[in-house]
C-alpha cells in the first residue's frame, strides 16, 4: 500500500474534513434556533461518548458502567449549585474533578482485571451507585431528582435564555476544548502507549511500561470528561434525575460510540446525533420502533461494518479513490 504511513506520525495533523463537523455544529445554531434544546442534549451525549472512546477505543478498557462518572458529575454539580455556588464554569470543573477523583480511587483496584471479570465489576459498580442514589433520597432526591439548578450569567455577561442559545454555544465550547485536549492526548506518546496496552497488555509490561498507572490515568481523564458532560447536563436541563446513573445511559453511550465508529474520536460526535435523531423520529412513528432500529443497527455493525458509520465512510472513500485511480 503505497503512501500508507504509520498513523501515530500524523495523528496530530488536522485532516481536511475535520472542520466540517464543527462548522455544521455552528451552522445548526443559526439554521434551527427552535431546536436548540435537543441539540444541546446531543452535544452533551457526544462529549460523554467521546470520553468513552478514550476508554474503549484507545485504552481497550470495556466499561459498561461509565454512567457512574457521568452521574457523579451531574449530582455534584447540582448539589454545589443548590448549596449556593452558581458560577457555571467552576461548577463544571469541580464536578469533573469529583469524577476524576472517583476514578483515581477505584481505578487501581479494578483495572487489574481484564475482559469478562472487568465488565462484571463495572456493571456492578453501576448498580451499586444507582441503588445507593435511589435510596439516599435526602441527597439525590431519589425518584424525583434534583430540580432547580440555576446558574449565574456566564462569565458575568451572558444570561441564560429560555430558548437555550447560551446553553448550546456554552456546551459546544466545552466540547471543542475537551475534544482538542483528547486529540492531543491521543496523538501523544501516552496515547500510543494506551494503544499498546489495548493491543497486548502483557507485552507492554514486558517492555517496562507501568501499565496499571497508565490505565488509571486514562480512566481518570475519561471519568473527568464524563463528569463534565454530566455537569453540563445538570446545568442545561436545570435538573438531575436517577437516569444519569443508569445502565441505560452507559449503554446509550456505548451504542452511540459504536454507531459512529470506535477509536476515531469523531465516532461519538457522529453517533450521538444519529442515535438521538433515530430515537426522536422513530418515536413519532411508534414509541418503541426505535429500539428495533438500534438493535438491528448494532447487529449489522457487528456483522458487517466494524468501524461504524465512519468505517463505512472510509471504505466508500477508498472505493471512489480506487475508481479514479483505475482510469
Amino acid at each position, binding site marked *: 500500500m503505497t503512501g500508507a504511513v504509520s498513523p501515530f506520525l500524523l495523528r*496530530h495533523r488536522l485532516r481536511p474534513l475535520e472542520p466540517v463537523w464543527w462548522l455544521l455544529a455552528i451552522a445548526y445554531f443559526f439554521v434551527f434556533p427552535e431546536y436548540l434544546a435537543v441539540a444541546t442534549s446531543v452535544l452533551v451525549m457526544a462529549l460523554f461518548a467521546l470520553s468513552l472512546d478514550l476508554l474503549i477505543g484507545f485504552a481497550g478498557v470495556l466499561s459498561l458502567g461509565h454512567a457512574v462518572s457521568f452521574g457523579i458529575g451531574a449530582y455534584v454539580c447540582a448539589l454545589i449549585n443548590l448549596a449556593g455556588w452558581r458560577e457555571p464554569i467552576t461548577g463544571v470543573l469541580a464536578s469533573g474533578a469529583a469524577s476524576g477523583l472517583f476514578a483515581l480511587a477505584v481505578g487501581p483496584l479494578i483495572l487489574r482485571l481484564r475482559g469478562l471479570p472487568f465488565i462484571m465489576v463495572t456493571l456492578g459498580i453501576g448498580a451499586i451507585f444507582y441503588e445507593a442514589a435511589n435510596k439516599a433520597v435526602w441527597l439525590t432526591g431519589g425518584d424525583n431528582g434534583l430540580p432547580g439548578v440555576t446558574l449565574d450569567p456566564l462569565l458575568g455577561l451572558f444570561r441564560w435564555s429560555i430558548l437555550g442559545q447560551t446553553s448550546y454555544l456554552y456546551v459546544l465550547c466545552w466540547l471543542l476544548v475537551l475534544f482538542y485536549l483528547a486529540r492531543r492526548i491521543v496523538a501523544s506518546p*501516552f496515547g*500510543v502507549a494506551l494503544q499498546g496496552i489495548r493491543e497486548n497488555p502483557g507485552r507492554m509490561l514486558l517492555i*517496562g511500561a507501568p501499565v496499571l498507572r497508565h490505565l488509571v490515568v486514562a480512566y481518570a481523564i475519561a471519568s473527568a470528561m464524563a463528569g463534565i458532560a454530566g455537569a453540563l447536563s445538570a446545568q442545561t436541563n436545570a435538573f438531575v434525575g436517577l437516569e444519569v446513573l443508569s445502565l441505560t445511559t452507559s449503554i446509550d453511550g456505548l451504542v452511540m460510540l459504536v454507531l459512529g465508529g470506535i477509536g476515531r474520536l469523531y465516532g461519538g460526535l457522529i453517533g450521538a446525533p444519529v442515535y438521538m435523531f433515530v430515537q426522536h423520529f422513530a418515536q413519532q412513528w411508534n414509541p418503541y420502533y426505535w429500539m428495533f432500529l438500534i438493535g438491528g443497527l448494532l447487529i449489522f455493525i457487528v456483522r458487517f461494518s466494524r468501524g461504524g458509520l465512519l468505517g463505512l465512510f472510509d471504505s466508500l472513500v477508498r472505493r471512489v479513490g480506487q475508481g479514479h485511480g483505475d482510469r
Partner: protein
Amino acid sequence: MTGFALEAVGLQKSFGALPVTDSVTLRLPSGARTALIGPNGAGKTTLVGLLSGTIRPDAGRISLGGRDVTRDGSASRVRHGLVRTFQVSSLFARLTVLENVFLAVSEHQRASGGMWQPAGRRRALIDRAEAILERLRLTDHRHQEVARVPYGVQRLLEIAIALALEPKVLLLDEPAAGIPTDEVSVLLETVESLPSHISILMIEHDMHVVRRFATDVNVLVQGRILMAGPPAVVMASPDVRAVYLGQSGQSRFAGGAHGA
C-alpha cells in the same frame, strides 16, 4: 562476589504436584553467550517466565547485576535491563512495525507519560526507532501493520523491540523458530552482532545455531539442569545424547542439518 549480570539460585516452581522447575541455578556473567537446550516439555519456557517475572517462583532468588529482583514485577525487571523475546511472537498486531518499536523506545526513554507533545514530533524517539529498524533491515516494512507482515519480519521485530530497550541481559526464546531456512541468516547475523557487553541466554533447539553462537550450554531436563559447559563437551556427553531420543537425537548432535 563479582557481579553476575544475571544470577538465579535455587529456582523452584511446581504446578500442583509437578515440579516444572527444580532447583535451577544459572549464572550469566557480563557478555555471556549461553544457550539453554533441552527436550520439549523440559520447562524452558517456564524458566524464562520465572526469570522475566511473569511467573513467581515457589522458592529461589534472582538478581540482576547484583540487585535482588525476586520480588520485582516484570515491568520493573525490564527497566533494570532484563529483556526477553517470545517464541511465539507477541507483538502489537494492529499497530505498524514502526509503532511497535516506537513504543519500546518511548518506554525506555521514559517518554510514555507525555500527553501534550504529539508523538509525531518527537524526532529523537522516531529517529532512534528508525535506526533500529534500519539495522535489522526492516525499514521497508516500517509502515505495515504487524498482523500483515511475513512471519520472519515478526521474529526480527521481536529482536528490534528488545534492542530498543537497551538490555543488559537478553533472554531469546527460540528466536529462529518458524522462520524459513533462507531467512534465518539475517536473524543469526543480528544476534551475533549484538553488543558484546550484553549477556544473552538463548533457548534453542537447533544445534547448528547453538554451536555457532554459544560459549556455554545449559541442558534442562524435566526442570533440572542436567549439565552445563562448553558446547563441545555438552554435546559429546552420553547422558545428554541419551536424553534426546534415539536416532534423531544422535544425528542432531553429530552435526546434522539445520532443524529437525
